[in-house]
């Protein structure tokens, strides 16, 4: 078994049918030193365009996020569009949206790791980074929604002056616990497999980067013990973070489903929200991978095969989302409750009915019509567009669930359409911050887990069966 996986000597010439195995990253091994050099180059070489975009995003963050938030803190929550009956608006739409985006990292990294799905290897870190940065945006959105953000420490589990503790049986405390658990777990899960790559970067850097990587690599050398502890921990994380991931979005859904409101009181909201989170998360990973691929040498690591595999997953998840959506819809529609019927009518034919329709087009029609096609799935720019459309659809879904559903209640005299105010610039600010953080991270940490790619290439080989060669994956553990 070679450390640097051997190139395929005769496989292609013997194989008479099917695609060239060298199209697959796992069957196209390169020396580790070369892959390391590419990863380092991708971090080091930055064009002026990159910094121009980063500066523009920083400006947006400064004006739309920092500035607008400071203004809202000074003037009060009245700058936002929330008012009776829709006290929950775009801030919570964004919270649910960003938590959804954050599910991709865990799904790709943990679930595919547990299931030993090999195509995951080059982009687990890109997805894990999305989880971390997505959760940060979700946290910001919740703090914005609170209005009096300086009192956010009231959520912390300690008693107040009257020795009264927070209510741990309240859905809002569940949210706090679940999101905190998920954020901390995701950051740790991002960091652990990063340590060997930070050590690699330490070995090839100088100046401030050397100092930074030396601190972050913790003195990792790759001893048997270090690998064993790391591997054991990653296995525990991969298994344990999956139920945490499911719990987070289920608990977010319970914020709605626990209320006996038309449109919200649904026993299926938990899995419906989880599948929605995966839908938007997977689509976001594809968009991110499209941009990662544009970085120097990244075309070697992120290939059409990866978009193809993700496209298949997206199609399946889209079908599952449609199933849960229809399940939720039909039960409410058939139930015949007067207020629920009015709400559904408002969803479809109200002044914002176009959102409901566009949601279905983006979440169902677009993936179903396009993703069955292998050529579409293997075209990165097309996949990126589909990914963006799905995310538009998923954002609209949350908008339909939160402020639009709140518009129709059992007190018609309170009905009033929600119109967002300062939520719009703040939302744009969080999006800009997410992209900016991602861009800066791409200059500081290797976006591709090189050691995992090399490990994958080591265990893949072609074996002759009859007149052709078939891929074989060895089990090292």
């Amino acid at each position: 078994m070679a450390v640097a996986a051997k190139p395929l000597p005769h496989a292609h010439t013997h194989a008479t049918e099917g695609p060239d195995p060298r199209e697959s990253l796992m069957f196209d091994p390169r020396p580790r030193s070369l892959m390391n050099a590419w990863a380092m180059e991708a971090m080091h070489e930055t064009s002026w365009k990159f910094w121009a975009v980063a500066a523009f995003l920083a400006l947006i963050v400064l004006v739309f996020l920092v500035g607008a938030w400071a203004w809202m803190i000074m003037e009060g929550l009245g700058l936002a569009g929330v008012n009776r009956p829709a006290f929950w608006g775009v801030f919570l739409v964004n919270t649910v949206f960003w938590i959804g985006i954050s599910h991709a990292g865990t799904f790709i990294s943990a679930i595919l790791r547990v299931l030993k799905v090999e195509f995951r290897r080059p982009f687990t870190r890109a997805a894990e980074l999305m989880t971390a940065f997505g959760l940060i945006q979700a946290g910001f959105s919740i703090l914005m929604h609170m209005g009096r953000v300086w009192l956010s420490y009231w959520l912390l589990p300690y008693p107040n002056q009257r020795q009264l503790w927070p209510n741990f049986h309240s859905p809002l405390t569940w949210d706090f616990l679940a999101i905190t658990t998920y954020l901390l777990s995701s950051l740790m899960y991002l960091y652990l497999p990063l340590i060997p790559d930070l050590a690699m970067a330490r070995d090839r850097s100088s100046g401030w980067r050397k100092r930074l990587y030396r601190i972050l690599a913790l003195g990792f050398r790759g001893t048997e013990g270090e690998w064993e502890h790391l591997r054991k921990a990653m296995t525990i994380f991969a298994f344990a973070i999956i139920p945490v991931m499911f719990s987070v979005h289920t608990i977010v859904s319970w914020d709605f489903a626990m209320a006996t409101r038309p449109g919200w009181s649904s026993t299926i909201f938990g899995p419906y929200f989880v599948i929605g989170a995966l839908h938007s998360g997977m689509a976001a990973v594809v968009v991110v991978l499209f941009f990662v691929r544009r970085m120097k040498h990244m075309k070697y690591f992120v290939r059409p095969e990866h978009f193809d595999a993700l496209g298949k997953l997206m199609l399946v998840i889209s079908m599952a989302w449609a199933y849960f959506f229809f399940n939720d819809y039909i039960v409410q529609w058939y139930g015949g409750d007067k207020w629920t019927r009015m709400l559904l009518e408002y969803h479809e034919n109200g002044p914002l009915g176009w959102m409901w329709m566009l949601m279905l087009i983006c979440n169902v029609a677009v993936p179903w019509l396009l993703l069955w096609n292998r050529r579409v799935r293997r075209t990165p720019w097309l996949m990126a567009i589909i990914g963006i459309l799905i995310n538009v659809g998923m954002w609209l879904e949350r908008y339909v669930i939160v402020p639009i559903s709140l518009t129709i209640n059992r007190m018609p005299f309170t009905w009033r359409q929600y119109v967002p105010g300062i939520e719009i610039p703040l939302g744009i600010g969080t999006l800009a911050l997410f992209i900016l953080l991602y861009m800066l991270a791409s200059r500081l940490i290797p976006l591709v887990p090189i050691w995992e790619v090399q490990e994958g290439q080591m265990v893949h080989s072609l074996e002759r069966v009859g007149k052709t060669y078939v891929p074989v994956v060895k089990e090292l553990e």
Partner: protein
Amino acid sequence: MSEKTFLALFSDVNPAAEAIAQLREMGMKDEQMQVISGIPFTAPILGRPHPRTNVPRMAMGGALVGFLLAMFFAIGTPNLYPVYVGGQPLIPVPPSVIATFELTMLGMLLATFLGVFLDSRFPSYRPMEYVPAISDGKIGVLFRCTEEESSRWMDALQKLGAESVSPVEAVQL
């Protein structure tokens, strides 16, 4: 007699594993050797004793601490200052399950993370025997022996396919 540390570098795992077996046959103890590599190799692949890890035990301990903390929050705190609301139970079981689950998992994962640090003695910024070629995919076999014995081991390792065998100093990583 003073002992020195030597590093044999291999670019392939098979000769490295073979060399480890040969060194053992020639009388070198497992404790005198250490393997460093850029990707994880299991103990059976290298023919080495299984490294002991406390990470799973730490994880279980963390889960227990998280569980007990959750019990305190979900069951203990309502009793510290009982507030009865509308005939609802003071300690409802289903909502308590949620806080218990989250804190148990948080305890377990934090302890797992901490376990890696404790078991690997991270962070460690003192000088250590290492060469950057390891992160380029080479497999290094570190071994300690006296200078008198060194030529015997070095010859043996070179015959067994080592790319290089040389004394190695602890360096600042």
